[in-house]
């Protein structure tokens, strides 16, 4: 057995044949596109003003990060480390909106799921607020908060809160009355029901809502940063486009999609699956 066969057997054993095959097949279009992109640069089919070279896109990272003073500069969101500053300020806004918006949405959602009066007031407002897409709030937010991070935070919060609200409400409503009544029969009070029945019962729906709201919120955030922001990835690609700096635009778009892909597929997706598995009230035939 030569080395190559050994290596191939080792890789197959380590990752699994089917996963390996899927991975290899899936990488074909990426390789093809990258080759096409490189060929475009070499043979100059389309001018570099429209499609930059791959090297140029990678260089753009160093241009943006030039004279960055190490980790301190990165963390203090220094203007000389533009790339990381934009990335971190976008992610920071997402985190801030998630920390404020998700608990608020869950609280109001469970309240609305418990109480008909609350839901009859909040539901029409929510339906309306949800159907005005996040981006349509930008002009009004600019009037209220001015161009800047408050506006983008508001857009993000608005998207996150209402989606969480609806998911928590529908999740709470979907819980069978039996569970609630059995807690009451065993002498529990209203608080016990909230903690022991509503919260875990609505958990799969809440996590789905989290995934959805962060996905929608991320899109809304990018758009909001383009129109009414002063930092962040959306701002970066929009200003780069205005200066016809295609390399930075391509870089920004790729970074945006990679951040979304990684959080969605490696963080929120598995979390959702795990919660549904752990708390999901799905009836499994035995």
């Amino acid at each position: 057995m030569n080395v190559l066969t050994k290596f191939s057997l080792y890789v197959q054993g380590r990752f699994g044949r089917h996963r390996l095959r899927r991975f290899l097949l899936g990488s074909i279009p990426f390789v093809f596109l990258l080759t096409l992109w490189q060929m475009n640069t070499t043979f100059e089919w389309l001018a570099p003003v429209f499609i930059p070279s791959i090297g140029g896109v990678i260089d753009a990272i160093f241009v943006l990060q030039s004279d960055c003073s190490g980790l301190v500069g990165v963390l203090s969101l220094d203007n000389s480390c533009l790339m990381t500053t934009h990335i971190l300020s976008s992610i920071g806004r997402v985190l801030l909106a998630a920390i404020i918006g998700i608990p608020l949405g869950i609280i109001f959602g469970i309240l609305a799921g418990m109480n008909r009066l609350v839901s009859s007031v909040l539901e029409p407002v929510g339906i309306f607020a949800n159907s005005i897409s996040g981006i349509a709030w930008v002009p009004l937010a600019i009037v209220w908060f001015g161009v800047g991070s408050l506006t983008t935070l508001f857009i993000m919060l608005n998207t996150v809160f209402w989606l969480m609200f609806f998911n928590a409400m529908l999740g709470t409503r979907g819980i069978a009355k039996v569970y609630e009544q059995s807690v009451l029969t065993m002498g529990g009070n209203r608080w016990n029901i909230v903690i022991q029945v509503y919260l875990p019962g609505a958990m799969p729906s809440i996590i789905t809502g989290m995934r959805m709201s962060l996905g929608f919120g991320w899109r809304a955030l990018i758009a909001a940063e383009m129109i009414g922001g002063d930092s962040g990835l959306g701002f970066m690609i929009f200003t780069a486009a205005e200066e016809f700096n295609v390399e930075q635009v391509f870089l920004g778009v790729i970074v945006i999609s990679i951040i979304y892909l990684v959080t969605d597929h490696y963080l929120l997706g598995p979390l959702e699956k795990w919660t549904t598995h752990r708390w999901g009230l799905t009836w499994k035939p035995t």
Partner: protein
Amino acid sequence: MSDSLNRFLAFWRHFSGAKVINLALIIAGLLGAWALISGSIDNPGRYLPSPLAVAASSVDMLYKGLLPSYFGDTISRLVIGSLIGLGLGIPFGLLLGLNRTVSDIFFPIMNFFQSVSGIAIFPIVVIWWGNSDKTVLAVILYTCFFPVAFNVLSGVREVPLRYIHSAYTLGASKFQVIRDVLAPGALPHIATGSRLGIGFASRAVIADEMLAGREGLGWMIFTGQDADMTSQVILGMLMIGLTWIVLDHYLLRPLEADTIERWGLVHR
């Protein structure tokens, strides 16, 4: 005829009675709260115009014929963009779903492009084609295409193999399997994907009009903010919200529910 009559009666029953009074009370309460807030702040014309001011601006814009024209622009963009997106996305998804290997090849790259939100593609397209209708349409098409194709693909793949095998066993040709098994089996997913795609497209239209400066509802609220006419901004937002409610609750959702009810593969 009697069918449509029945539908109308059901519609009427749904909205008459206690519910409609409830809803009217809530809307009246919200309008009252809005009027109170706008009455109690400084400079309401800039920060939060009263409902009356918004109504006045709507009358003004209707009189000038601007509102219908903006509305028509936005709707026609949405319809054209999402029709092309659906027309391309559905066959593409079906084609990819036919073969396991082909779908394995294209799944990851579609996943990648789907996560580039349509609006992030805007700066690239604007460099290619400038602030034109072509740019707006391209971005709408892009936003609509990927969710549709993705959903159709997963729909085709979720058709149970035994249906396909049983059709083959009964002597069906490849084409018959596609027409009679895979396409109807994927219909619920096609409906879901279309709703999602049109939803994304409707958001993209507004953002595009703001960014590209093409006339429409998005442009109306954006210039309203620039010109310090907040009542126009709020009017535009109300129009956008109402349009989507009508589109989603009375067209797309019933369509999806009907499709799932008729063709949904419920295992019993």
